[in-house]
């Protein structure tokens, strides 16, 4: 739900809110690159453009706290990234409380995590403090490293190893490099937030 009068143009919709709560329409048009769309009717815009306008209205006034409910839902990856960039920039000097069902996005841009499950607060701490029981690490190599990592399973070009702590990864990589591995990529395959969310 974008909370914009659908029959209005983008400019009129922003002016509508600016007249009620005050604020700078031009600043919002600049901030969210809406100048080209300002004379377009809101109901003719794409989902991504609508989302930009909808988010734009919250920037009419400078606030100390921003509360956003799934701002990147139903938008294409490009707009999603634009919105994330705005939120990251904004969070440097403002408090941004942001709800999302996308745990990868939450891990990427969140500083603190509040996990609510069945209406109960399940977790509140820094995202970096979310611990997993096991970590699955995917290692992509340009050459065959199966003899160096006999315990690893090959999944979609990644040699997958399971470790108890992220601190063990550095040792594994050192051993691989010394053994002649030509590493292309090392990545954490699971999202710690996912495990936290799935816990009872």
């Amino acid at each position, binding site marked *: *739900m*974008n*909370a*914009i*009068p*659908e*029959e209005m143009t983008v400019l009129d919709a922003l002016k*509508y*809110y600016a*007249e*009620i*709560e005050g604020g700078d329409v031009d600043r919002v048009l600049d901030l969210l690159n809406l100048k080209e769309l300002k004379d377009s009717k809101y109901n003719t815009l794409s989902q991504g453009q609508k989302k930009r306008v909808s988010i734009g*209205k919250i920037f009419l006034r400078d606030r100390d706290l921003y*509360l956003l409910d799934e701002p990147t839902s139903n938008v294409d990856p490009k707009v999603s990234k634009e919105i994330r960039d705005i939120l990251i920039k904004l969070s440097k000097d403002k408090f941004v409380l942001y709800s999302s069902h996308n745990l990868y996005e939450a891990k990427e841009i969140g500083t603190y995590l509040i996990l609510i499950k069945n209406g109960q607060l399940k977790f509140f701490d820094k995202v970096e403090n979310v611990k997993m029981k096991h970590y699955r690490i995917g290692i992509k190599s340009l050459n065959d490293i199966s003899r160096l990592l006999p315990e690893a399973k090959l999944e979609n070009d990644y040699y997958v190893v399971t470790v108890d702590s992220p601190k063990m990864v550095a040792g594994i990589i050192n051993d691989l490099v010394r053994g002649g591995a030509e590493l292309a990529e090392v990545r954490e395959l699971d999202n710690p937030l996912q495990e936290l969310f799935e816990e009872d």
Partner: protein
Amino acid sequence: MTFWRVTMRRSINLSKTYVIIGVMLALYGTILSNLLPLLPTNTVNTPIDLTSIFPLLSVAILSLSALLFSMPVVMLFVYDKNNGIFEYLLSTGLDQLDIFKGYVKASLLLAASLLTFVIVLNTVIGTFVGTSLTLLATVAILTFSIGVSVVFLVTVSMIAFSSLQKTRMGANQPLGVSIGIIPVFPALILPFIFPSYALIIDVSLAAIILLASIGLLLSIGKLILREKLLP
């Protein structure tokens, strides 16, 4: 532009059909009110003094025209509620009564503007065709008081009780409009049955609707709750 002005403008743009029906009905009421003096004498040779009843009949029609003319405001209210606009306005710190007042004000001013126009038109035409000034003044006062009261009654009821406005299969069904039509309806029938009481009937109806409106006004604080503005 203030909130209620924008609401008025948006309402008219959103549902022009009701606006057009309201204006047409108002013109019909004005014509009906001034019709009999223009007809040949033999057609009005009846035991009932139709020349005084017809202007009083137009009171109900003109009141209903104001109701239909202002109906887009309550439809816009539901549209804005479902669209999450009120939820956002509440989150910015706006009070639910401020939002409510904006819509009621828009509704009343739309109705008042049409009523003022038709009353002036009716008075001018009535004077021209020879209707008594006392009757014209009575019609003007009754039309304005019943019209504005009915619009207030219906607007507040439909905002306060969402069950009076259903949205089924994408179509808004303003069921609450019957709250306005039912109390005005006797004014369309009873003057024919009891012609000598036509004025008393209209005055009584005006008083009843006005009292109901005042009662509703006094309980607004309890009726207009914050959660009722959420989608």
